[in-house]
């Protein structure tokens, strides 16, 4: 996904949060909260308060952003990949959403979890570690193999014999 300007990014976030808050207030909280038992505060009170704060704060933020746009205040476009890097701390985040990057690491993780239950820990963890290293850019086959075997064996031994955690080996 291309880099978003700050206004585009904020507006996207605000719209999503407003929608989520409305869904929470209108459907989720009424449908999945126990009925008032007749004493104390209603079980829906605190969830409703939290969702309402989310909604109000987001609407206020939208209004502020609209006022800024109307006044012609230029909120900086994040045109470089890591625009705030130059501030010196190195702890600010990237200015773009990289969904394929996210999918690249989430999908193998989900498959690994499914793999533990189906083919067992050892084959799925080995496959996962091999793939993961390839995905992060490691191309040295010996290093990839050694690291995978050592990490998987160490974790298995620690889980099984160190902590006594049941884990299907294969």
């Amino acid at each position: 996904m291309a880099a978003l300007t700050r206004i585009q990014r904020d507006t996207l976030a605000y719209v999503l949060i407003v929608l989520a808050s409305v869904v929470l207030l209108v459907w989720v909280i009424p449908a999945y909260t126990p009925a008032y038992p007749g004493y104390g505060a209603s079980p829906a009170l605190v969830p409703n308060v939290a969702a309402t704060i989310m909604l109000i704060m987001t609407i206020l933020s939208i209004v502020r952003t609209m006022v800024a746009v109307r006044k012609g205040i230029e909120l900086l476009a994040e045109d470089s990949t890591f625009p705030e890097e130059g501030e010196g701390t190195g702890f600010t985040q990237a200015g773009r959403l990289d969904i394929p990057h996210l999918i690249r690491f989430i999908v193998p993780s989900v498959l690994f979890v499914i793999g533990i239950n189906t083919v067992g820990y050892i084959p799925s963890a080995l496959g996962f570690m091999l793939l993961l290293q390839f995905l992060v850019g490691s191309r040295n086959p010996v290093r990839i193999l050694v690291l995978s075997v050592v990490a998987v064996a160490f974790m298995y031994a620690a889980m099984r014999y160190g902590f006594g955690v049941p884990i299907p080996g294969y």
Partner: protein
Amino acid sequence: MEMILAGLMDSLSPVSLIYVFVGVAVGVAIGAIPGINGPMAIALFIPLTYYMSPLAAIGFLVGLNKGAFFGGAISAVLLRTPGTPEAAATTWDGYPLTDQGKGEKALRMALYSSVSGDFISTAVLVLIAAPLATVALYMGPPEMFALISLALTVIAGIGTKSISRGLVAASAGLLAGMIGTEPVTALPRLTFDIYQLESGLSLIPVAIGLLAFSEILIQLERLKFGVGDNEGARRFSDKPEDKFVTLKEFFANTKTLLRASAIGIGVGAMPGLGAPVASFLSYDQAQKRSKKPEEFGKGRLEGIAASEAANSAVVGASLIPLFVLGIPGNLAVAMLMGAFMIHGMMPGPLLFQENSQLMYGIFGSLMIASFFLLIIGRFGLKLFCKAVQIPSVVLYPLVIFTCIMGAYLGQSSMFDVMVMLVFGVIGYFMRKFDFSYVAFLIGFILVPEWERALQQVVIISQFDTFMFFRRPVAMLLMALTFFVVIRTFLAGVRKKD
């Protein structure tokens, strides 16, 4: 007195000593790696503490946190890349010294300053926490409710660039924390009829996902664009005057160390501010009061002393609000609070009454951790310098693998791993859209206590909304909460204008 001695003896038991030692050593190594910080390390290692005694667990995690604070200085000095955010100010004088071949000297100064700040702060914690907790016992449910509201607001306001975003994040954390069994009716709430959610979301997968997994996703993205890969460490000079800090050099910075420690303690005791604020403030003060301010930024030991003593002093002081009021002031302490809860204890003033021996044992472990930090740093410095050279392509897959197995370890549950992955994605988007995951996590941790206090207020007062007006402390705290919201919001509007 008997309890104090028994607690201190517990902290000197071999098992406890080993765990504290290992915690400090691992913490220094982890803190040295850019991109991995103390709270993230605590999140990754909390699952291991299931298998430890409460004292060993807390001692291990506190050691880990203390070690990580110093470890952050290693990459700050050697690579000009702070291993942890609070070490950023250390780069300003540390790296120029490395450029001059005096990297070892800079690291030693960072170590001694870190230990000094940490020791002073721990001493203050030990001296004042128990008496303050006795006073805090007089606080009832209205005061607790108001205090947690204030803490959430302050953390939401300071931990992010705008209070509205902070409050949105904190509210989302509250909602996530309310998933599970509702305390009054004992019926499931917000569970979407998923039976695994009836016991609520476990802290471990949520914390690992938000803190560690999402951070690694971001770091990997940086790596993709060629930013943030670790370079090799610089060579050190062999001349003794470039390697060691003499007693004269150390004591020449006594005033700076004391002032930095005081700043660190003050900042640490207040929720929301955090160690980076302490180190920047202390560095600024040291420069203003120095006889040679023009030498700051060019490799002055005083600058390193100011930054490191202040950020390390935050560690002990930030435990004061946790032990006295049950309020975590920053992320690392929030994670420690989670560890207390995992071991069946609720941090707060009652902790000293119900677990006094354990509390004094923890105080003992805190002091011992300072001593171990000195020993480990003194003799293992060169070894830890190697940690900054671990290639990212080796490190990140290992961290992702550890995240997944760590989430599984807590309850041997694949559902928890999925929860971790979901919160990893949520954390990724929160970072991208600039919403505070700190406020989210603290809201998540504090909501059971907040709701319990609210229920007690409602039941005791029988829906009398004027109850707060009859409790001056509660009223003051609520007024402060509204003041913080309005002031921060207006400040944001003025800034935009």
